[in-house]
């Protein structure tokens, strides 16, 4: 009689190569487990790498400091098999003995794999502001989303379509968030991210005047520091209200709204408008929910068995992590990836202890 050793345990399947999935893969690999990491896109890193986030809130540290070592470890570690451009199409079985079908999106080939456990970390998509026509996103190139501004900041060149640097810039908060016609929830990070970007714009364009048009400022926890700093050190202006319409006038944008603190309408010309687009579950999460028969809540996020215990999917052997459960920051997604890896390690150790004849 002996205990099973690790080589008899099937690899752990991790779906999604963003912060949560990478962290889960890295932690499991470090513990000695084999991991198969399936990523829909052609690169690892999730939203922070896909959209080229320059820095992360709240300390404006380069994104690479967090994502670089993780990607390097996962790709360089012999324990992780990375399958890019691939999606999981189905899974049968249970803890210790899943049979998983993975389809390669480039050549259409499917592969059948054995897996001991599954971690779902399919993340989020930025809200597509074309859905909400009032902002003119998609019609006017000087109306951009915060994810697009990140890329421009990273290149160190923020200009209007005509090549001029913008002098007066508006950020509009809660686009595709907290709104019955789009998404009902708060994305939790866009206040902080917008404020972070406003500070970075001030570094890049010293003479720019920046106006944050907000309903509430929700810079949770220690991110609050960003909010204070932006007002006190960078002179960024805050206007309480909502924007109803944006018109293009020449190469300027006429932003119409109400300042709810003065109870009066405003119609002011801006050079550039940045939309603080929210987070939504995205097609990847919906596809995985169908493939693995997972519960989805009213908003389309994956629903854990208990609302305060995210990693428990309600299906034995399948664990959840990151922004596919609820909107969250990169630091939270990393912690959830680690937490899911720990749950998998616990479950697999129980299996190992089972005595083999």
């Amino acid at each position: 009689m002996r205990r099973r050793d690790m080589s008899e345990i099937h690899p752990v399947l991790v779906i999604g190569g963003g912060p949560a999935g990478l962290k889960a893969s890295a932690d499991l690999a470090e513990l000695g487990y084999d991991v198969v990491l399936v990523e829909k896109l052609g690169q690892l890193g999730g939203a922070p790498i896909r959209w080229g986030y320059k820095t992360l809130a709240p300390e404006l540290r380069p994104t690479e400091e967090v994502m670089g070592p993780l990607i390097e470890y996962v790709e360089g570690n012999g324990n992780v098999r990375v399958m890019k451009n691939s999606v999981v199409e189905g899974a049968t079985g249970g803890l210790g003995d899943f049979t998983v079908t993975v389809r390669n999106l480039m050549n259409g080939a499917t592969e059948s794999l054995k897996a001991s456990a599954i971690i779902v970390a399919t993340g989020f998509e930025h809200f597509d502001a074309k859905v909400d026509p009032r902002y003119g996103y998609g019609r006017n190139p000087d109306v951009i989303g915060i994810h697009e501004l990140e890329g421009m900041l990273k290149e160190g060149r923020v200009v209007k379509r005509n090549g001029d640097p913008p002098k007066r810039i508006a950020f509009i908060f809660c686009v595709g968030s907290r709104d019955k016609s789009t998404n009902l929830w708060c994305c939790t990070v866009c206040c902080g991210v917008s404020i972070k970007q406003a500070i970075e714009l001030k570094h890049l364009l010293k003479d720019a005047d920046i106006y944050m048009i907000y309903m509430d400022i929700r810079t949770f926890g220690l991110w609050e520091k960003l909010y204070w700093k932006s007002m006190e050190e960078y002179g960024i202006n805050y206007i309480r209200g909502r924007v109803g319409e944006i018109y293009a006038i020449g190469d300027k944008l006429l932003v119409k709204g109400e300042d709810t603190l003065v109870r009066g309408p405003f119609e002011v010309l801006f050079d550039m408008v940045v939309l603080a687009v929210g987070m939504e579950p995205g097609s990847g999460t919906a596809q995985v929910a169908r493939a693995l028969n997972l519960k989805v809540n009213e908003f389309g996020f994956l629903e854990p068995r208990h609302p305060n215990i995210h990693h428990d999917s309600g299906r034995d052997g399948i664990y959840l992590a990151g922004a596919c459960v609820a909107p969250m920051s990169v630091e939270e997604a990393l912690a959830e990836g680690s937490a899911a890896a720990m749950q998998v390690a616990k479950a697999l150790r129980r299996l190992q202890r089972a005595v083999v004849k």
Partner: protein
Amino acid sequence: MSQRKKKGEFIVERNYVDDQRIIEPEKLEIGGVDMSGRWGLLVLPRTIEDFDHSLHAMVKNHPRGRNIDRCWQCGNCTAACPVAEENPLFNPRYLIYIIKLGYKLEIEKFGNYVYFCGSCGRCSEVCPKDVDPSGVMEAIGTALRRKP
């Protein structure tokens, strides 16, 4: 010439229009035609069309107004103010807001109420962000007097 009772008395629904928005020249001649009286009357739109940060800059440079940018409009100052308790037109939180963003019409309408401040300092005791609203009121008063 008949004696006018009230600015813009010809305006229908006169109560909707602030005095500050009415431009009514005594004598107006355009192209040799006398346009005085109701023909020369102009009502400015209520809409905020621009920001003017010149007063804000003056307040910031005043030794007692330098913390104005810390204000996030919580309203603790107005809540503690014994003057605002009696006079709704004096509102330190609101004065800070319209000066910061430079809302011209609002400043014309409410700016002079800044001199109602009794400098008791209660606002500065309760301010959670050390704006020193009492000092900012003094700085706004100075800026309004010195405004070119």
